[in-house]
Structures are given as C-alpha cells and as structure tokens.
C-alpha cells in the first residue's frame, strides 16, 4: 500500500529523505509496467479497500542491479571527494 511504503521510507531513513509522498505513485506505475512489482486490492485493518504492492521475481533482481550501479556511482563520488 502506497501509504505504508511512504511511511516505511520515512521511518527507515530517519526522516532525512522527505520527498513529496505523492511522487511515489508515478514511480510505482513505472515499476508495474516493468513487471518488478504487482498490485492487488486488499482490505486495511480499518476495513478500507487498498492496493497492496508486492515484489515479483524480477523485482529483487532489478534491485540488485540498481543497487550495485548506485554503489559504483557513490563509490566514485566518494573517491573524488576524498581526493580533493
């Protein structure tokens, strides 16, 4: 569920990453198109209809790829900064 995803991003990042919560939704669409996540309607604890997102098999694979790419870039940036 989008709301919970937003909450957990905030929680995990200790509120450092405070992006517009809504921008999660266009991002979710892109992941849906790529087939990294699937969405299913379910019910919340408060008995409301909500859409729950779930990673597919392709999801973690893509995550690993993206993470390693990200780490390479960060690593490079760090090295550049340290060299200064």
């Amino acid at each position, binding site marked *: *569920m*989008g*709301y919970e995803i*937003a909450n957990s991003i905030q929680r995990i990042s200790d509120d450092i990453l405070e992006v*517009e*919560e*809504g*921008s999660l*939704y*266009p991002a*979710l*669409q*892109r992941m*849906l*198109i*790529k*087939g990294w996540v699937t969405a299913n309607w379910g019910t*919340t604890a408060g008995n*409301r*209809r*909500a*859409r729950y997102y779930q990673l597919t098999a392709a999801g973690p694979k893509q995550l690993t790829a993206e993470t390693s790419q990200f780490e390479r870039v960060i690593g490079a940036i760090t090295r550049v900064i340290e060299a200064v």
Partner: protein
Amino acid sequence: MNWLSELARRLRMLMHRPQFDTDLEEEMRLHLELRQQQQIECGMAPDDARAAAQRGFGNLTSLKEKSHMAWGWEWFEQLVQDIRYGLRMLGKSPGFTAVAVLTLALGIGANTALFSVVNGVLLNPLPYPHPDQVVTMVDWFPGYGESSISYPDFLDWVRLNHTFSSLAAYRRDSFNLTGQGDAEQVTAMDVSDGFFSLLSVSPILGRDFSSAEDQLGGPPAVILSGGFWKTKFGSSPDIIGKALNLDGTDYTVVGVIPENFYFCCSSTGFRLSDVYVTIGASKDPPVRDRRMISTWAVGRMKQGVTLDHARADMDGVARSLGVAYPDTDKDVGIVVTPLEQIMVRDIRPFLLVLLAAVGFVLLIACVNVANLLLARSTGRGREFAIRAALGASQGRVIRQLLTESVLLALAGGTLGLLLASWGTRAALTALPSALPRANDVRLDPRVLLFTLVITLAAGALFGLAPALKTSLPDLHDTLKEGGRGASGARYRTQNIFVVVEMALAVVLLIGAGLTIRTLVGLWSVSPGFDPHNVLSFRVGFPPSISNADASRIRASLRQFTEKIASVSGVSAVSLTTGAKPLDRESGLIFWREDQPKPPNEVSMPYALWYRVGPDYLKVMKIPLLRGRFLTAQDDANSPGVCVIDEDFAQKFFGNEDPIGKRLDFSLVYTQALQIVGIVGHVKQYGLDETANSPIQAQFYMSPWQLPDDQLKTWAVSAAGYVIRTQSSPGAFAGAVRDALREFNSKAVLYQPETMDSVIARSLASHRFAMILLAVFAALALALASVGIYRVISYIASQRAHEIGIRMALGAQRSHVLKIVLGQGARLALLGVVIGLAAATGLTRLMTTILYGVSATDPLTFSAVAIVLTLVALVACYIPARRAMRVDPIVALRYD
C-alpha cells in the same frame, strides 16, 4: 519476451483506462485520509491536518497525470481527441468539407486508377510460376534484325542447349472447321508438346499433348480453349475423345485448357486461340524447311540460371548451328529476352508519362485544398490564439491541424477509391485494344497500399503549410478585436499557391497538347494508300479447294474474286495472301540476277512480300509510279513478273533503272522474275513508321504465278481479300459472306474489318495516352482556375475596407478593377512563365511517345500560355467586378 509481457500490461491499462483512473484516485484519497488521520492523532486540528497531508503529498492533479502518462498512451489519447475534434470541425462547415473531399477524391482517384493500370501491366509478374525464368527467343539476322525462327532450328535448340529446363515452340495457324453446324474458321496455335507445362497451365479437362502426338505421323490431337469449349460445345465434359474435323482431317480432342489462359507476345497479338494442335505433327511444308522462319519460341531457364548464362549458352548454340548449316544459319544470332519485358515493351513509356501527369493533378488538388484550408484558418485564428494562450504548444496545434487534414484526405481517398474502381473499368471497356494484359488490371492490395500512402502524403502535404502558418499567430494582434489590415505574409502564401498551381497546369496542358498534336499529325500522315471505303477480310477455304490440284486452286481463286466483284456496290476486289499493311508480315529473300549470288541465304537481302491480285492498286489507291502493275494476264502460263516499291528501287538500284531487271527468289520460284513496274511505298508498320523500322523494301507478285507446289502454302492458307466499296464498307461483310456461301457453302469469311479501323487500332496507344492526358489537363485547368478565382476573391474581400477608403477618396471603379485584375494577372503570368520553363525540361522525357512534333513545340507552348492566361484573367474578373461594386459606406462601416 520481457517486452511482450510489458506490452500486454500496457495494453491492458489502455483497455481499462476509466477503471485505472478511479482506482488511482481511490488509492490516493486513502493515502491522504490516512495521513490526515495520523496528523489528527498527533493532535492537529482536522483542517490543519488535511492541509498538512496535502502539502506532504504534492500536487494531486499533476501526480495523477504523471501516473497516467507513465503508461505511454498520451499520444493515442490525444489522437483520439484530435480526431473527435477534427470530425466536429469538419461537420460544422459541410460546404468546405464537401469541396475539399471532392477535390481530393478526383486527384487520388485518378492516381489510383492509373496506378492500378501500371500495377497490372508493368509491376505484376506474369500469372505463371517463377515468371522471371520464362524468356522468349528470336533469331537475329545481320540484314534485318530480330525475326521469328525456323522449326528445324528450334529442334536443334532443344537438343543443344544446356541452360533451359524446357523450350517450347508455337506458331499461329487457322483451320476450316466442318461437321459442327456451319463451316467456320477457327484461330489456332501450333505448339510443341511442352508448351503448356512450360507455362504451368494444366488442362481443366483431359490431358496435355503427349510427345508421340508432337511428331510427324503422330495421332492428330487437339486441345480446346476454355472459351471455345464453352461457346461451341456448351462446356460438355463428353467432348474428350470426340473428333474435330479441321481442314478435312479428324483430330481427337484430348483436353481443354482454362478459359482465362492467354498468351500474347510479339507477332501473335492479343487475339485468343480457339484450338491448339501440335506443331511437330504439322504437314505444312514450311514447318520442315530450315529456311522458313514462321515459328516462335519460349523457354524456361533451369533453376539458378541467370539471363546472362542463358544468353551465353544460346550464343554457343547459334554458333554451332552456323557451322552446321552455313547456308541458313551463318552469323544468325539468338536474342533471349524475358517474356515480361516483351509484353509491355511498347506501352511502358506511355504509362510512365501518364503516371507523372496524374501525379501533377494530385499536386494541384493538394494546393487547392491547402488554399481552402488557409482561407478557412483565417476564420479560426482566434480559436488557435486562445489555445496558445491557454498553453497549447505549437506542436500540439500543428498536430491538431494535421489530424484534420489527414481526416479530409482519408475521406477523399475513400471516395477516390470508388471513383477509381469505376473509372478503371470504364476506361478499359472503352479502350480494350490499347493495353496488353488488361485483364490483370484490378484493385489489389498493392494498389490499396499505394492509395493509402498517397492519401496520407497528400494529407500531410496540403495540411502542413496552413498548419505552420496558423500555428504561429501573433497572439496579441489576433486577440485584439481589430486585428485587420493588410497582413502581407498571409497573402504571400496564397500567392505562392496560385503561382504553383498555374505552373503545374501549364506543364500538364503542354503535355496533353503535344500528344494531341502527335495524334492529329499521325492522322494526317498518309499510310501510302487510301483506307477509306476499304473492307478487308480473310477467307478459309474448304479442303476440297485447298487440297485440290494447282489448276483447280488457280481457277477457284479467280472465281472467288469474280464472285465478290459481282456484289453490288463493290467497285474493286483484290486477293491478298501475303503481307498486309498494318496487319500481317510476310517476307522473302532475293538477289539481283545481274549481280553475283551471295554466298549463303543469310547474307541475302530481305523484302516484304505482297501477293495480290491485279486490282490491288485500284482497291488501295496506291499510285503507280512507273511501268505497269500486275495484270490478269500474268498467270501460270506467262513469264514471271514482279512490281517493286519506290524504297526498293532506291535501296537496291539507286540511279539505275530497275524496270526490265530480274530478281531471283530461289526459295519459292525456280525462275527469276522480271520487274515490270514501280509503285508508291506503303507504311507497313504503322503511321509512326520511321526510317528505323526493320524492312522497308516491298515487292508485289501475282499469286497465280506461284509454282504449283507452293500454291497451297502461299496463296490458299493465308488468303484474304480487300475490297473497295462505294459506300460505308462495314455494311458489306454480310453481302460478301452470302455471295461466298452461295459459291461454296464451306468457304468461311472471317475477321472482317474496315481499313479505317485497322488504322485506328494501330493508333490505340497514342489515343489512350491522348485521351487520358487531355482528361488530366482539363482537370488541372479546372482546379487551377478555381484556385486562382478563390484566392483573388479572398484577397479582394479582405481588401474591401481598403477599396472602400480608396473609393471614398475618389478612386474610379475602373481603377479598382485594374488593381484587383492586375494582382491576379501578375500571379498568373508568373505561374505561366515558371510552367513554361519547367515544361521545357520535362517534356523532353516524353519524346518516345511523340511523333512529328518536337518536345518543345513552340505552337503548343504559346497556345497553352495564352489559353491559361486568358482563363486566369476570366477567373480574376469575377471577383474584380465584385470589388468594383463595393459600396464605400458599407465597407467603411463594416468594422
């Protein structure tokens, strides 16, 4: 397959867009409400909590849009929107829409019709499997070029070649059919046993010829054409095994081939054959004679063999035949040509010129519609300015306008397709003889694709200029109510349109003018004889005459002539059994007896051989230049004589006097013939015959002087008559037929035709091109004059205010007339000048279809320039008159 499942997901979203939007909305609302709930729980007031939630969430509308757009269907949704909007706009102005659609329909329809012809005739492969493997083969003689071949040579080709999977021979023939009601003449083709299988034609009934039947002494067998089987035997399946009496011999019917089978190339013309017999079984002596070239050949190359291979192979065959038979085959080459090329050789240039012309018509139609659109877009200036002010990008507005023009084009294209399918059929029924392969002309997928492409291209073409023009409005000026005054730039576009239209129309009119001049010129060319009031027909003699002895044949031929001459209204009659102008060819090799005999027959000269009666000159009105013509006294008992034409005299005697000289025709005559007269030259190969045509020399002989053993071959088999009549010759066929039947009930008159229609037929291609070009040019003229009329009207109405002021200040009406007319005249003249320049370059491409007129004929050029300028002036005069009558008060009060 990742992209495939991705596509499936995207498509699923496209199908369920409304559902998608409500789901997304529900999801976001829940998000906001939960966040608000959380803030309230943290102690915020409900209103503040909602505001905070919304702040944290971001711009709801834009996020919804972004999520929607992420699926990539934006273009599609806009297209649907544009189409809907475009349809509404077109529906709002039905008059404009109707004119635009009709204009485009004419342009696209004409293009589709012509392309379907080009497609059927030039582009579609022949209806045989692997048609590119099928070639025709002819002899090439050093003396006179390409020619048919001899049957013995053909048999050697079959034996000696290495590159063909099969070769087949064929020759035209005709038979007197008896025993099936009235005697009648049937057209036939003598073919070798592999002919049908080479062309991949299977009998629909019975079987193909066997090789035993294709041999001298083999059982006589006949295959019927589907059409003949239907009309003569009511498609009865019992026909197989029955006997057909042809020229007195019983042939067993072994098969029937499909009705739609046709085979035409070179000399065989478009006429279909009724029956097919085997050439190998023919008892006709010339078939066995290596010196007699009356056979044609086709071949199918082996898989993987190229044309060059086949040519090299046949060159080798030709060389070895030259060594084996130096007398008849030395230095004779073999020309191998793809069948397809042969069939369309003559019509190709005509079609290409027409295709270019019809493209011009479409261009003019496009310019006209662009013009309409531009005029209309002035009225819509505010609409686009508002759109732009509301944030529509230029690209978006252009897309909207292009969608509208493509919609117009599609409507025009659809209507054009209907016009084309009707027009093509009408044209083909009206001009059947002008086109080979006419039955291959139809609207097939390729034509439809062509139409679609030109329709879309046209839509883009005529839509783009106005779209670019309109989408760049000066916002400020247009929105300000008083946005009038002379906006020169807009006129400039329309002026360019007028000039372009005029120039295109000039080129088309000149093209049409040149073909008309060609045809008029050809009609006035004398064929060397007078075709008016001459009827020509052929006669099939029954076996009782053709198989009779020589004296009986001679007597019969004479009696037949006398019988026809006795028909009232017939003023002269002549037998004609050899070459016939514009129709049949027959030739013979010879040498001058007073000069050394050439070493072999190949090196002997060749001349057209007319075998005619004594009254031939009287019938055809060919002038006798010197000496005398053949007479009734020139018969079997008197010394052999011949008459030559002026070209013959010029070419072989130069300044010598040919009369009294003797010519040796050893192929047919044992004795040399003495030249007794010289007559005028006749255009054997058509009115457009030029000095490049193959054989020019002609000579005449009396059929009665043919040696006894040659009579059947050269006088009876190919017998025909020409008669001069006192009134319309077409009406005489019946009377002559009755007279013949009275004389011999089994003699058959066939192929009656007036010489006038023979000549008309020979001009069919020229006529076809002229009619179509004239139609296209008329269309272009009409469109262009409507175009200039509309632009001048428009400009005049826009200038009404200015004109009002001028008149209020004392300008004369004639002055106003001059201003408006002058503006139109300037544009028209500029267009005409550009058109003349373009035509000078373009008409050069059509020289192949012109005759007797230069591609830059000054008369045509100046006539077209004058006509078009006048038409343009008239078109401008109407709006100019209207402008002249402007009431200054009304014009000034108007804005």
